[in-house]
């Protein structure tokens, strides 16, 4: 062991350049690899950590026109009653804003306002998600309202170190479902362990979700079913048994074709968060690639310095050292390098985790929390290290000791070939990564530049869903100030229109996303009405509610503008179709524009208040809103800019582009470092040759060409090979978008230029030194 360590210290000292480059390269690669693997682990273990993890299924109803993610409370109970395969079930409220402010009384009786998630669940919650109780009892906890279960950390936030059992918090229920705000109380009866970050359940307080109307399709349904019973249950759910004969037949009509589907809970994360799986898999691939490239570098360096080591290896062999032991000593260098790099990367992660990394990765970059994963990476890196360390070792040991002692010698042809192919692979990977990253970046820019068809500048919005504020009083007061131009309200933000109505209209089943809006909404956002009329103030009156469809609604349902004036079925009333509007993007630009309608319904649906500010004094306008808000509510005034929110719709893509670019640069950096190191060794071993050539009349340029040509040929070959590969990847990736930025040659050319310049600069820097050296010095040195 002592001799192994000694040998490593000698290598560090004797081959300083390659050692430093090796350590930097491997550290950067490990940093990327570990961060990515923590994220991948987070994603792949999403929703898998429940006790019944594999047996929990999420129920959705699919139709030709889309997928219903929610169901009414009665349906959950009905399924459980009719099908013995269901072991337990739970419904959870689907709420846009589950973050509520609660009042907590501290020990002096003072009221404090804190934000917490309150989730409404049915009694089956305990059986389905099996919270681990640490204090109190769950006896009868979801049998009646007013008592609840809280997770550990949130309990600490609300009550500090005192026991939360028996404590009461007060919250204001949304005016959305009650016409007047009411104050409710919850008394904590039990505390459970926190749920992990990577699961569908948010930490906070859980209270009873009472039976609701059969028409309220607002709840997520989860069912625990034995694995072997799933198929049987699936057949049963898609039959008359659940829906009754008449409704079932109605559901199977050609324009609906409803089908009940059970999705394993742990698949929901990837299936419903679009792009997540692609992102995760691309990251995984990049991580592996980066590490691979760093190890290739390691191997390249080891092969490059091999000739200088053959001699000492063989002297030791002649004197009597065992070949096996010598081999181990050299192979172990890779292990040391890996270990050092691994350690450095861990230090970097703990330094960066709060600042940089948390912006890009939802997973917590906790080293302790991921120790099992880190251990696994550590062990496999040892295996990698031995694998990549073995070839140079075998190479060094492959010479007959007697031959090895006869002066200097260069690399065998086979090794040069191997080394060249390794450099080729490095450049190929780096070039591909950069082209892909630039293309993703371009697509993101393209989407952000696409017109939404609505105005979005200088518009801010507020959530009113939980407050008691009358939006008209509030809005009119604001409008008295010249800094506020106008206000309007809607049930959802652009990009988050979730309500889909399926109705029978004109004898056929039609479907449209419905955006519930104030009558001035279209004017406010500059949306054109092409036929019929815009909303008028009287359309807001109950029983006079109106609807305006977009052009795609006509087109997709093969209807004509003659539908104007006809009634259209709403929730519990008929709306009048008053006009047709231009198509506007109401969802992400990943999707093409679908049939959609603006509807004027009761004010109680209007969760969001939009305010248009004068562009002359935006900060002043914001100030005014905040000041005015204080007169209406104790809660914080959470103002957001619409354009920023819309950009966030592409956060996934923007992040992915940034990450791939970053890793692409790391890869290039490692590859270029590798080339740099190789050129140093190359020039060194050819010093004499260079000198002789110069003595015989070669110019500096000719010498440089001689030294660089090999690398440049490899660069060119890898570049040519990278073009079709990256073209394929980008085309595949773009398939998920409705609006695609075309692939451009500019990116390909730019990437080529970038890599060419960086490489040539690196190589020339070194070879210039060698070729401009006085030849007499090199000849003398021998």
């Amino acid at each position, binding site marked *: 062991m002592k001799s192994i360590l000694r040998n490593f210290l*000698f290598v560090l000292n004797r081959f300083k350049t390659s050692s430093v480059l090796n350590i930097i390269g491997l550290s950067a690669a490990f940093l990327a690899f570990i961060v990515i693997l923590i994220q991948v682990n987070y994603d792949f273990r999403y929703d898998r950590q429940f006790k019944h993890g594999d047996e929990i299924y999420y129920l959705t109803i699919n139709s030709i026109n889309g997928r219903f993610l929610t169901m009414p409370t009665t349906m959950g109970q009905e399924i459980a009653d009719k099908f013995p395969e269901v072991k337990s079930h739970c419904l959870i409220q689907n709420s846009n804003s589950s973050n509520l402010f609660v009042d907590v009384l501290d020990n002096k009786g003072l009221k404090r306002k804190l934000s917490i998630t309150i989730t409404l669940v049915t009694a089956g919650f305990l059986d389905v998600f099996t919270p681990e109780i640490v204090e109190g009892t769950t006896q009868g906890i979801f049998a009646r309202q007013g008592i609840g279960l809280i997770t550990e950390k949130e309990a600490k936030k609300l009550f500090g170190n005192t026991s939360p059992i028996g404590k009461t918090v007060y919250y204001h229920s949304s005016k959305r479902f009650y016409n007047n705000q009411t104050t409710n109380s919850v008394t904590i009866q039990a505390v459970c362990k926190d749920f992990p970050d990577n699961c569908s359940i948010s930490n906070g307080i859980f209270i009873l979700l009472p039976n609701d109307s059969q028409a309220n399709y607002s709840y997520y349904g989860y069912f625990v079913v034995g694995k072997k019973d799933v198929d049987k249950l699936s057949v049963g759910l898609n039959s008359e048994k659940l829906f009754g004969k008449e409704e079932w037949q109605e559901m199977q009509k050609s324009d609906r074709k409803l089908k009940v589907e059970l999705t394993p809970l742990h698949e929901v994360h990837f299936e419903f968060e679009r792009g997540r799986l692609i992102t995760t898999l691309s990251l995984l691939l990049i991580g592996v690639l980066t590490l691979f490239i760093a190890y290739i570098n390691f191997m390249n360096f080891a092969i490059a310095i091999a000739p200088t080591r053959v001699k000492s290896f063989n*002297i030791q062999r*002649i*004197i*009597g*050292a065992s*070949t096996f032991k010598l081999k181990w000593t050299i192979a172990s260098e890779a292990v040391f390098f890996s270990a050092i790099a691994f350690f450095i990367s861990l230090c970097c992660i703990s330094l960066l985790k709060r600042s940089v990394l948390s912006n890009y990765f939802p997973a917590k970059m906790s080293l302790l929390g991921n120790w099992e994963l880190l251990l696994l990476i550590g062990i496999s890196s040892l295996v990698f290290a031995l694998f990549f360390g073995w070839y140079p070792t075998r190479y060094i040991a492959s010479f007959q000791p*007697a031959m090895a*002692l006869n*002066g200097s010698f260069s690399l065998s042809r086979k090794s040069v070939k191997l080394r060249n192919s390794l450099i080729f692979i490095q450049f190929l990977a780096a070039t591909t990564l950069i082209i892909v990253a630039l293309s993703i970046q371009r697509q993101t820019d393209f989407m952000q530049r696409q017109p939404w068809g609505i105005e979005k500048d200088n518009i801010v919005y507020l959530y009113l869903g939980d407050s008691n504020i009358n939006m008209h009083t509030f809005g009119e007061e604001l409008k008295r100030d010249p800094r506020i131009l106008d206000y309007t309200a809607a049930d959802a933000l652009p990009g988050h229109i979730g309500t889909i109505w399926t109705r029978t209209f004109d004898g056929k089943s039609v479907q449209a996303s419905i955006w519930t809006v104030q009558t001035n909404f279209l004017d406010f956002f500059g949306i054109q009405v092409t036929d019929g009329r815009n909303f008028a103030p009287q359309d807001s009156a109950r029983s006079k509610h109106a609807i305006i469809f977009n052009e795609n609604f006509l087109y997709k349902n093969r209807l004509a503008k003659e539908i104007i004036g006809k009634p259209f079925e709403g929730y519990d009333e008929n709306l009048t179709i008053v006009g047709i509007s231009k198509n506007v993007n109401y969802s992400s630009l990943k999707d093409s524009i679908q049939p959609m309608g603006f509807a004027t319904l009761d004010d109680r649906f209007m969760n969001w208040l939009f305010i248009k500010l004068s562009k002359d004094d935006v900060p002043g306008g914001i100030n005014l809103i905040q000041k005015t808000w204080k007169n209406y509510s104790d809660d914080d005034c959470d103002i957001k800019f619409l354009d920023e929110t819309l950009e966030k719709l592409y956060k996934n893509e923007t992040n992915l582009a940034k990450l791939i670019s970053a890793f692409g640069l790391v890869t290039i950096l490692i590859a270029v470092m590798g080339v740099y190191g190789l050129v140093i060794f190359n020039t060194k071993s050819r010093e004499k040759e260079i000198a002789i050539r110069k003595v015989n009349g070669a110019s500096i340029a000719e010498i440089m060409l001689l030294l660089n040509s090999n690398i440049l040929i490899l660069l060119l070959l890898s570049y040519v090979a990278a073009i079709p590969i990256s073209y394929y990847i980008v085309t595949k990736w773009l398939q998920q978008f409705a609006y695609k930025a075309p692939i451009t040659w500019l990116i390909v050319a730019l990437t080529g230029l970038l890599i060419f310049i960086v490489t040539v600069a690196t190589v020339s820097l070194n070879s210039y030194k060698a070729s401009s050296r006085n030849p007499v010095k090199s000849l003398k040195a021998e």
Partner: protein
Amino acid sequence: MIKIESLKKVFRTEEVETVALNSISMQVAKGEFVAIMGPSGCGKSTLLNILGLLDNPSSGHYFLDNTEVGDLKEKERTQTRKGNIGFVFQSFNLIEEMTVYENVELPLTYLKVKASERKQRIEETLKRMSISHRANHFPNQLSGGQQQRVAIARAVIANPKLILADEPTGNLDSKNGKDVMDLLTELNREGTTIVMVTHSQRDADFAHRTINLFDGQIVIETENLL
């Protein structure tokens, strides 16, 4: 001590076949000092490598102390070499990352000699080679003559019965060259068998007998009358 019979060594590459040694037979008695001479490429070093068990002959027999060693495997050769054969090279072949002391120590560590005994033996040997004062230096800090003395120290430290020297004075000036030859002669007087390859007639004169090689064959053998 050494007996070789019809020893042949052929090097083959894809295109050419080179006969380096062509049916050589010779003997070296215990305690003898033999010089091998001949022009470049005549097979001197090949012969020495085979004698030193660094290489196997293509055919023929090699008996070392009456044991056939011509067809040993790599591992067995290492085993036989250990402690029995010492090497001195023209280019010294010291390990540059080790000090003089450590270079000399190397064979003893492979023979698993105890640390206390090693220290004593190394000190004695270095003293004898007059380089004790350089024990903690690295090879590149020494002159050629000093380096060769270290190499000889390393060759004799394990008390081998046989020392093989490949042009030991080739890289040295005449004064240092003579010192090295004196050292070898002294070792030989103490009973060590020595086989030395050389270009120098002056060096060859130190030996008891000179074997002249030409194109892989022994052409003349001369006894030196001292």
